[in-house]
């Protein structure tokens, strides 16, 4: 008789209750039923355990066997993950998809392919002393150096390399190094719910540039920072996140489709391989790992998906890369948590979410950061977290949005009203904020221009003034406006159309680098100076407004490529000056 076998006593949705043992531990992996469905213990009482099952439970019967493995849910980490699409528990969907168009149950294969060969180049040699996280050697994975590191939990008595594989081709299961008596292979396993240890945390002083003007200029995210993007359906969460996945200056992007649409995953899979990373010229898919646990896939696996993604992110961070982890949406994760909690009949907190929602969320957000990973040589890696939030009814007062606000440094508030007007990205500039300005202003001033901060403030002030004037007009009409105020109203409208609006599907405008953002800001400033000059010389605003087609002119400028932009701008301003002086 095997002492690790229990049997099913109860079934409710994705939660199965089974007999268990004195040594059954929380989060232990269990195989359930004759199909060996994968599950994880989420609660143990004296001799029964509640297990969340990562696959559809239909057909399970009372009395079916459960096998307790004594292990925690872990991910096999090694070369070969980049470019893949995994489900919420790390199964490779491409390989599963070749067998059937539908997700099948009870198949457990690792995403890291055992048969793929990698050319390993050692960096250390026999006799070298090593510690956790030290880089032993490297292989090339999709154009990046994939470092093979000493395991973080390595704790041998003898820490001297007794054998090192010569350079050559190996599979991930080959031993490539012996440290004392411990053998090291090209992969490591890591329990997905435990953060990987790091050396120390660093300040966040560099931006995660997105190429989206409103984000980079007004609400910038730092490398290693956290951002939330809440909004009702159709406000632009997915488009914004996909646009960041495309253009951001991250080395690696982990994109988690957490309880959202299947076709959105397909879109990424179809488009990204043929797009190029603007910085490195490699196919975009080569720097991505997609985790697709769509809304109709098992909810328990949805709960696990964000931890899986984070573990992979930390693994690449530990090699010294800047990783962006994008989850669409964290609300669906919270709902999975709520559903499981409901099945366990736990006491509900706010909106039915379990009382531990906030602390679980906090632990996830806190895995972001800019760090020095363990091991030598010393390196710097970061994880930036970008979470979409889908508040019911678009109402931000609900718990997932509120926790997100508390835990993140950037709040990119999507606005249904703007989306309805087709103002995209429909980020509300009055409501959004970034807490990274102070650190990043130094970066922008140093790396881009001293004018960056003053120009941003100029534009932001016009937007504010324009907004209050607009509110006034809607109450008392336009009669009381001064000439200057009329211009401010107009200019703030121009800023909206010319600067804030950015069509993610327009090949010429989808991506705007910092240099171009700067000249565009400058355009607005120069325009403002000219018009104010004319107004001060007594020209009436109506005269100006009826003579010039500012929107058309600015849009024409915006359609210029960056090389021609500055010349066109100079001649535009020159022409404007002449025409204005005719009016005076």
């Amino acid at each position: 008789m095997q002492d690790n076998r229990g049997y099913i006593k109860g079934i409710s949705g994705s939660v199965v209750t089974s007999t268990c043992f004195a040594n059954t531990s929380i989060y232990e992996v269990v195989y359930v039923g004759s199909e060996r469905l994968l599950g994880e213990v989420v609660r143990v009482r004296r001799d029964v355990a509640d297990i969340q099952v990562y696959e559809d439970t239909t057909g399970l019967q009372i009395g079916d066997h459960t096998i307790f493995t004594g292990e925690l849910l872990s991910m096999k980490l090694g070369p070969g993950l980049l470019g893949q699409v995994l489900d919420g528990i790390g199964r490779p969907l491409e390989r599963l998809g070749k067998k059937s168009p539908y997700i099948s149950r009870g198949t457990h294969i690792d995403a890291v392919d055992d048969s793929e060969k990698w050319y390993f180049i050692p960096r250390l040699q026999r006799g070298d002393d090593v510690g956790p996280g030290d880089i032993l050697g490297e292989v090339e994975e999709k154009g990046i150096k994939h470092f093979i590191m000493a395991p973080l939990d390595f704790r041998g008595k003898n820490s001297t390399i007794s054998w090192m594989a010569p350079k050559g081709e190996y599979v991930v299961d080959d031993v490539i190094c012996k440290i004392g008596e411990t053998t090291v292979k090209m992969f490591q396993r890591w329990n997905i719910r435990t953060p990987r240890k790091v050396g120390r945390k660093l300040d966040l002083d560099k931006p995660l540039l997105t190429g989206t003007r409103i984000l980079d200029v007004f609400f910038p995210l730092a490398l290693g920072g956290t951002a939330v993007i809440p909004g009702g359906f159709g406000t632009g969460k997915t488009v914004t996140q996909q646009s960041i996945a495309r253009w951001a200056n991250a080395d690696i992007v982990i994109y988690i489709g957490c309880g959202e649409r299947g076709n959105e995953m397909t879109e990424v899979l179809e488009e990204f391989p043929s797009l190029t990373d603007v910085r490195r010229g490699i196919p975009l898919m080569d720097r991505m790992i997609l985790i697709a646990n769509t809304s109709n896939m098992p909810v328990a696996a949805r709960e696990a998906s964000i931890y899986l993604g984070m573990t992979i992110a930390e693994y690449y961070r530990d090699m010294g890369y800047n990783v962006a982890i994008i989850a669409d949406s964290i609300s669906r994760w919270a709902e999975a948590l709520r559903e499981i909690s409901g099945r366990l009949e736990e006491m509900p907190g706010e909106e039915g979410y379990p009382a531990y929602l906030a602390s679980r969320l906090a632990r996830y957000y806190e895995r972001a950061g800019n760090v020095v990973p363990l091991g030598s040589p010393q390196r710097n890696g970061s994880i930036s977290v970008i979470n979409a939030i889908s508040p019911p009814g678009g109402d931000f007062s609900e718990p997932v949005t509120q926790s997100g606000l508390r835990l993140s440094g950037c709040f990119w508030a999507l606005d249904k009203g703007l989306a309805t007007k087709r103002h995209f990205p429909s980020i509300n500039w009055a409501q959004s904020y970034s807490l990274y300005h102070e650190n990043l202003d130094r970066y922008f001033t140093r790396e881009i221009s001293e004018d960056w901060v003053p120009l941003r403030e100029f534009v932001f002030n016009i937007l504010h003034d324009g907004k209050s004037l607009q509110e006034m007009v809607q109450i008392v009409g336009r009669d009381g406006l001064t000439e200057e105020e009329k211009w401010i109203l107009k200019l703030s409208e121009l800023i909206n159309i010319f600067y804030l609006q950015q069509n993610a599907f327009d090949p010429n405008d989808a991506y705007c680098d910092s240099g171009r953002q700067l000249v565009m800001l400058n355009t607005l400033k120069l325009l403002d100076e000219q018009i104010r000059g004319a107004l001060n010389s007594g020209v009436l605003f109506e005269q100006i407004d009826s003579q010039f087609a500012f929107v058309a002119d600015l849009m024409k400028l915006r359609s210029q490529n960056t090389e021609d932009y500055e010349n066109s701008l100079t001649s535009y301003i020159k022409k404007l000056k002449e025409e204005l002086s005719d009016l005076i």
Partner: protein
Amino acid sequence: MKLLKEGYKTVEKIAGPLLFVSKVARGGIGEIVKIESNFGEDYGQILQIVDDLCVIQVFGETMGLAPNNTVVWLERDVVKIPLGIALQGRILNGRAMPIDGEGPISCIEKWAPIQGNAINPWRRKSPHEFIETGISTIDLMNTLVKGQKLPIFTGSGLPADKLAAQIVKYARTPATSADSSPFMVVFAALGITQREASYFREAFRESGAIYRGVFFFNLAGDPSIERILTPRMALTVAEYFAFEKGYDVLVVLTDMLHYCEALREISSAREEIPGRRGFPSYMYSDLASIYERAGCISGIKGSITQIPIVTMPDDDLTHPVPDLTGYITEGQIVMDRELHGKGIYPPIDVLSSLSRLMNKGIGEGSTVPEHRALSDQLYAAYGRFKYLIRLKTIIGEEGLTPTEMSYLSFGEKFESEFVNQGERRRSLDETLEHAWNCLLTLPKDELHRLPVNLIDEVMLKRGTKA
């Protein structure tokens, strides 16, 4: 082989649509059971099991059932539906029993579980083929593509049925010939009234869809719990025709509000913690298990396009049913009471409507190169019109500039001509013609979403001046 029939007389409790049966040996989750009583036979499904106690949801009425007159037989199977080509043209009730007097379903090819499996995202193929619905506000501004799930959000008394029937009648892809109906329809009525049902029947007969489609009718007077089965049965049939027989299937589900109410009924009988407005907190995942069954699969012919109809109680878009639907579907077509009041048909509010897959189905090679730009321009102009209408009520017409006045004429023309097309089908060319008619009421400088040379070209062709 099963020799013994497993029957239980141990009904402990009956609560709403639920039976609690004890002493069941090896109950299986999701299995169906036959329920025998003085009133005859019915079916149910095991929802939850705690030791030997099974919670069973009964698809029919529980009225009259009593613990001592009820026997529960385990069928040891999940809910399945018979599939075969001969389903075409059949009218079935909410649990797939024929009600058209044509006898039992013949030539059954196989029985399939109705639960369905999730499509592996890696095997999906993005929907991209333009469907011409003949409706201007959809074709030009909220384009439907083959394999999309695009619901109609409506309010009580608004003509969503008419619109859905019209789409079924007119929808075609450019590749198919103009007079044959290219789509096979699978229709599931969920708790709609006799009157609505006969409207659809008549409309389908008139359009000929009736001969090739498969129709499920669960009416308002039918057992509500049956509604949990009906959409899943309809989709299993749709999957069979689409992915095994290569058809392009158009699935109309109406009304998903009633489906969700059935879900709420069970949830409350189970004494689950209610979510917003009493709907269960797992309703998002449950709805996704229905809506996500739309799509296209790579390497397989056929497609499933879904048009669910969702009533917004009190015209409230943030009500949980339209809200969660909108979070799952690929856009929405929103009916508007104000336009309806003005006598405009179809009363589609383009500003709150959206087709998320539109970009894939339009432009060079599919429709016209300027499709996106035209649509964007119409949106921008109509949005401006809406703003100016409000402003006008405050500051009066005198306060508006001439350009702003031209927006007012644009908006009126847009609503009364472009949107208000009546029941006639409009070809895409006619739709484009109407769009230009409206846009050219604006000064040329205002049309900054359109390429300048295109405007010139169109004006030249029409002999209009700037």
